[in-house]
């Protein structure tokens, strides 16, 4: 390998990788700094574990519906960058909700309240927001049936505080009619700001896109009346996606009564509002009485929409109960303190290591310092890229992992340098020692780093929360260590060994034969 070794090519390739990474990290319209975890910038983190009521495992469908409901609520808090993540699988599934910034203390309660699904008769319907011209016919996207053109509405003056959905009342009074007229689905957070509604009361609600608003009567059927629902294409094969719905025995009776009453009504009051968490998910109109307890909801659904609606119908409410495992609320000030402490500890630790390397290894220590700088740059860039691409966040535990990795990275250099010196002690010349020492050190570095990566991978897959962040950083930095040792340190030492100064044996080189106690006669003997 020594004969064909091309150190400059290694350095060039590494430089290109680094440049590519830098370009990727600093692409326009992206974050140019690492994405910080909640413990570093403040916010609320809630870890929930979903449990199925009948103690069976939580199915993927149930999980999907639970996540949808939680996302809907989290979006309702109106905080940008709020996140809902799933970690683990099977019995270890955890839902991690992260809401950055200073948030109200009541969010946790709202997250886990049971959602309710109900079928309500539509009493009135209108555009979600005031329309510029009444002649525009409503689009039918995702809507099961065409709508009559609503009349233009003068905005009555209503206290905006009353416009926070769900707006409910036992009877529809004049005041509620005014509230309905004033409600603007585009401005109020009613589209996402979902909260459980009371099935026994009237409800003023927006649909899930905010395109329409409805006044709905008390529930005719509730989620428990639905036996099953599935999305599919019509049996004829032609047409759009649709949702097939089957009621339970008691549900079928209620459904028959409801459809008998509804199909005779004029639009818009011939519609059902399928309401989840105070939001109208769909409002199909009833074309005929459905007596058998199974129905088809058709319209211009995409596959995605049909599937989502079928899940809403099937599980009705939060399909699983959520127990709170952990809640952490950290103020932005404290988060900032922790970030500062973490960065300071890292910088201080790095400085100490550099001083030690320089004192002990002299010129070689300088090369090691460059290598550490390259490794640190790599880590920083990759963390930015991963933050943008897969949402990886740097937490305090992650920073600690990176600081610990300074030691492991520096050790690769120590192993190499000690081998190199051993070779010199045996009387080899610098050039030979650099090559031979590397071929021996290389094996040790790979074996030792492999154990480190093994630990990181096992930890990552078997843990949740902060342990995961730590494991990820540790694994990442160990991989970077291998890359830097092979592509940077090795060629750099090789090139340095070609310089006259390093071979001249000055005490500052760190490879001075005299200092290493090599006897003159062995030099001659070579």
């Amino acid at each position, binding site marked *: 390998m020594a004969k064909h070794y091309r150190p400059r090519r290694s350095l060039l390739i590494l430089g290109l990788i680094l440049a590519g990474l830098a370009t990727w990290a600093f692409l326009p319209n992206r974050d140019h700094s690492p994405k910080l975890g909640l413990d570093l910038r403040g916010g609320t983190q809630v870890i929930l574990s979903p449990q199925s009521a009948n103690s069976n495992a939580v199915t993927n469908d149930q999980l999907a519906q639970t996540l949808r409901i939680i996302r809907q609520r989290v979006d309702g808090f109106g905080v940008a960058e709020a996140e809902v993540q799933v970690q683990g699988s099977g019995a*270890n599934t955890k839902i991690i909700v992260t809401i950055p910034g200073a948030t*109200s*203390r*009541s969010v*946790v309660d709202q997250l886990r309240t049971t959602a309710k699904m109900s079928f309500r008769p539509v009493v009135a319907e209108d555009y979600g927001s005031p329309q510029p011209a009444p002649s525009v016919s409503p689009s039918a996207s995702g809507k099961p049936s065409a709508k009559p053109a609503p009349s233009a509405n003068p905005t009555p003056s209503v206290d905006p505080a009353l416009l926070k959905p769900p707006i409910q009342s036992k009877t529809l009074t004049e005041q509620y009619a005014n509230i309905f007229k004033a409600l603007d689905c585009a401005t109020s957070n009613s589209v996402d700001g979902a909260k459980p509604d009371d099935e026994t009361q009237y409800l003023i609600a927006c649909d899930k896109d905010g395109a329409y608003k409805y006044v709905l009567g008390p529930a005719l059927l509730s989620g428990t009346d639905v036996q099953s629902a599935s999305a599919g294409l019509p049996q004829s094969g032609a047409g759009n996606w649709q949702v097939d719905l089957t009621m339970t025995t008691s549900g079928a009776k209620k459904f028959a009564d409801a459809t008998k009453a509804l199909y005779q009504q004029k639009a818009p009051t011939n519609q059902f509002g399928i309401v989840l968490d105070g939001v109208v998910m769909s409002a199909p109109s009833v074309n005929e009485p459905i007596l058998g307890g199974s129905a088809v909801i058709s319209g211009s659904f995409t596959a995605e929409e049909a599937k989502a609606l079928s899940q809403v119908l099937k599980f009705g409410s939060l399909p699983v109960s959520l*127990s709170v*495992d*952990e809640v*952490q*609320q*950290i*103020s932005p000030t*404290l988060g900032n303190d*922790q970030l500062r*402490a*973490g960065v300071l*500890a*890292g910088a*201080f*630790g*790095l400085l*100490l*290591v550099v001083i030690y*390397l320089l004192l*002990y290894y002299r010129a070689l220590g300088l090369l090691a310092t460059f290598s550490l700088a390259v490794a640190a740059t790599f880590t920083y860039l990759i963390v930015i890229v991963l933050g943008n691409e897969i949402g990886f966040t740097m937490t305090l*535990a992650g920073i*600690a*992992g990176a*600081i*610990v990795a*300074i*030691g492991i990275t520096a*050790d690769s250099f*120590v*192993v190499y340098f*000690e081998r190199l*010196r*051993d070779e010199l*002690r045996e*009387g080899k010349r610098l050039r030979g020692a650099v090559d031979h020492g590397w071929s021996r050190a290389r094996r*040790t570095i790979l*074996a*030792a*780093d*492999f*154990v480190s990566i*093994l*630990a990181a991978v*096992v*930890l990552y897959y*078997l*843990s949740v929360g*902060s*342990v995961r962040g*730590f494991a990820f950083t*540790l694994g990442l930095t160990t991989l970077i260590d291998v890359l830097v040792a092979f592509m940077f340190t090795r060629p750099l030492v090789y090139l340095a060994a070609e310089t006259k100064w390093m071979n001249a044996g000055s*005490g500052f080189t760190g490879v001075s034969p005299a*200092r*290493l*106690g090599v006897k003159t006669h062995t030099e001659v003997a070579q």
Partner: protein
Amino acid sequence: MSKTSSLGNRLYRGEISFDIVDRRRTWYVLSAVFIALSIGTLALRGLNLGIEFKGGAEFTVPVSNAQTADVTKAREAISAVGHEASSVTIVGGNKIRVQTTTLTIKESNKVNTALATTFKVADTDIKVQLVGPTWGSEVSKNAARALVLFLILVAMFLSVYFEWPMAVAGLIALTHDVLITVGIYALSGFEVTPATVIGFLTILGYSLYDTVVVFDKVKENTKSITSGSRMTYSEAANLALNQTLMRSINTSIIALLPVLSILVVGVVLLGAGTLNDLALALFVGMLVGTYSSIFIATPILTQLKERQDSMKDLAKRVHARRKNAGIDEESLTAAVLAPSYVAPAGPRQQRVKKPRSSRGK
């Protein structure tokens, strides 16, 4: 530099040699005492588990200048809303940390408001952590599963890359490290949090990492040892230990420096928290890990190896050869055993470097 460097030189050439393998009994006894102490304390006192393991609520209130009177104020504020603080401590001089038993979210909001009013801070400035009673056991369960899987994988790797005696010796050293670190936590009463568990798990990786580096040198020194009769396995292993001693010391210092920096910065700036919990476990574990790679792993390895028939034969041959050559085994230094031994001029050279023809075989 010159001092340490020349120590390194002399160690490498074997001019200075520490009889680490020969004195294994001393190390075993020392470690046995520590382990017994650890297990004893663990059984008697147990670990001081953080609320993450017991379940409970923790509130951290930022105050400009914490005084002992604040502790009483905090206790009173909490009793006023019908709860009791299990502990109230001042952290880092500018924070008051209050712990209670498990609270529901509504109760926690009440306590939060009470504390905010008492200390005249905004509701949202208080750091709140609520932990359900099952969370801690799940964290520990996950950690235990990770531990078992890791040990199996590492044992497989070490058996393939090295050989099974090395895998056994490495794992014994690992167990030793974890036991002693946990024991120190029991003894000192430091709080065990998930961050501490992360620290423990990192020690596993580090302890083995260190052992792998030492074993790699042992492997190299003993590669074709049975084809000759110059030294026994134990002697070769001891030489390897001495030759990697400077690396072990350097690596430990370099790994400990950043950890020390985390500890210092964490204590000065934050008082307590993730950084300190993690760094403390690492600091203790890395020290013990370096010790065990040298003083426990390798001596155990030599014992296991010396039981093998090929190594027994080797030892016999070596002793026989030395007897023939009239070498006093007691006065034998590692220097003359070193593979790279460059004979200095002097009478001792004559005693060892006999002409090939007269070397006993």
